């Protein structure tokens, strides 16, 4: 098992980047401070100065830096996205993560040496799609949407020369990434175009006689009784009524943890594992990075006997926003 297996960690800012590098990340992914990336949140991401410093810090320690430019530009804002590509290239990032074919075409023609990754927002779930991006834009890696089973991931890996990166830990989208306009429908802000889902500016928490209510642009997403913890009103994680039953109609508020699948993921030839959470704190990034570093190292030493240590799982559970952990689509309890 000598193929590289990279740990790709999130950084919403310079402190998180340094923590990830120090904690043992092989790669850190970041974004610019605007809607050119899918974590366009207030106070998050990098300006030029912090990015330069972050890249220098990472490169001195042989860690790669990726920039996500994974929203879809339109003709009236197109120059901002191409400028972001140019800037990423000029800063010497190790790869840019793109979703829009037009922008990939631009990047491939303008900066042929720049390594391109296909973002999860590109919604490529099969090898034919991934090979399309390879042939047209010479992408080197694809991040798979969080909808495939392990067997399906393996089938993709076997049928493409493109490196495959999968999500290993963190928040979970139940919808195919890049194919979800629920937030756009409710709030006018979408991951595809504005780089955010269920944006904070649309959120309201209201204490009412029937409990704490959470709303998104006025739409009731959930209501919490005494003793229930009022979670953030991410649209698909609310409780709704369908055919006279009230329940988590789309998705339980759970987070992904695939630590126990590590030997399988390595065996089937996955090239990199991605940790979700650029919006999370440096402390979160540090803890997750350390645990995954230790787990990957242990698994590489002796994959046949790899068992997630109880301490690792406890540490990860602690930072999962009080949510239960799931293996997501990789094994399909709901199938």
């Amino acid at each position: 098992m000598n193929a590289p297996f990279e740990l790709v960690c999130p950084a919403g800012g310079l402190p998180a980047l340094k923590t990830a590098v120090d904690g043992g990340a092989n790669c850190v992914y970041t974004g610019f401070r605007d809607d050119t990336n899918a974590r366009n949140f207030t106070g998050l991401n990098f300006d030029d100065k912090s990015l330069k410093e972050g890249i220098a810090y990472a490169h001195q320690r042989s860690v790669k830096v990726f920039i996500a430019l994974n929203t879809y530009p339109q003709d009236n804002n197109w120059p901002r996205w191409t400028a972001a590509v140019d800037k990423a290239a000029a800063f010497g990032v190790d790869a840019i993560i793109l979703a829009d074919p037009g922008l990939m075409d631009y990047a491939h023609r303008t900066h042929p040496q720049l390594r391109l990754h296909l973002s999860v927002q590109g919604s490529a779930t099969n090898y034919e799609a991934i090979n399309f991006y390879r042939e047209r834009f010479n992408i080197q890696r694809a991040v798979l949407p969080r909808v495939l089973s392990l067997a399906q991931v393996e089938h993709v890996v076997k049928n493409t020369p493109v490196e495959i990166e999968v999500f290993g830990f963190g928040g979970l989208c139940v919808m195919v990434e890049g194919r979800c306009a629920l937030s756009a429908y409710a709030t006018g802000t979408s991951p595809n175009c504005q780089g955010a889902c269920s944006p904070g500016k649309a959120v309201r928490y209201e204490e009412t006689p029937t409990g704490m209510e959470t709303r998104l642009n006025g739409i009731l997403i959930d209501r919490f009784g005494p003793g229930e913890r009022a979670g953030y009103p991410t649209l698909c994680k609310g409780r709704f009524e369908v055919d006279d039953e009230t329940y988590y109609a789309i998705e339980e508020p759970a987070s992904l943890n695939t630590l126990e699948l590590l030997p399988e993921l390595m065996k089937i030839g996955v090239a990199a594992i991605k940790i979700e959470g650029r919006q999370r704190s440096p402390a979160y990034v540090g803890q997750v990075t350390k645990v995954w570093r230790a787990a990957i190292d242990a698994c590489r030493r002796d994959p046949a006997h790899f068992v997630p240590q109880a301490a690792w799982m406890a540490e990860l559970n602690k930072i999962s926003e009080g949510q239960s952990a799931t293996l997501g689509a990789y094994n399909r309890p709901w199938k």
Partner: protein
Amino acid sequence: MKLALGPLLYYWPRQRTMDFYAEMAEQALGVIYLGEAVCSRRHEMRLDDWIEVATVLADAGKEVALSTLPLIESESDLKAVRRLMDAARDDTRLTVEANEMGAVRQLAERGQRFVAGPTLNVFNGRTLKLLADCGATRWVMPPESGRAMLAGIQAEIPTGVETEIFVHGRLPLAYSARCFTARRYRLQKDSCEFRCIEFPDGLTLKTREGAAFLTLNGIQTQSAKVYHLERELPELVAAGVDLIRISPQADAMPALLDAYRKRIAGVAASMPAGDFCNGFWYERPGLELVTP
């Protein structure tokens, strides 16, 4: 500007589906999209049935496009897509609507012309140009986008490429590997009992205040409100839109199509009533109803 009948997004019994398209064969429609465009498990209509309906409609002088699934997960999904492409290759009256990039790759390789479907995320002219180079002769605007985005693309539309816009129906908003209709009835997806067949217009999801919000349609999530760009038709004509897509619904399709045809011709017509929205066109939250 011509009318396009979008693919049937709901799961109707086989006979009902056949009857529906027999009825649609009588309608003046620019294009009819056919095929299972939501869930690969649905089987009331087999691939051969769809191809047969396509042939019958083509014989009746209709332009027909076969829609591919937007979410391809397995080799058997890929095989189904290839069979649709084969059908369109063998009968040149048929085309394919590609709904994910895997289909685009194969269509380009085979040199087959195709329609770039609404899930291909065409948001700018450069992407459309690429798809046109791959063989796209028409593109369908992603439902979440509006008039400013359209204007940008129309300003540099490649020669020979038509523009189609979704103007009527519950909006297809999201796709998942999971089935939310099965989830409601505590069924696993692999043993879903095909419960979505009981809901010819989908299953309404309401907030805990009882407000209709979304529509569950198997692995697809739609709006509860009906997208409706009737008053915007003159603006669409001015923007150079070639086709407007009406999404099949359980009731009153002939009346609806008739009303749209009249409105295109500039004749007054009463639309069937509904809980309408049009926000996306105005770059607003999609569920809003903006008065132009």
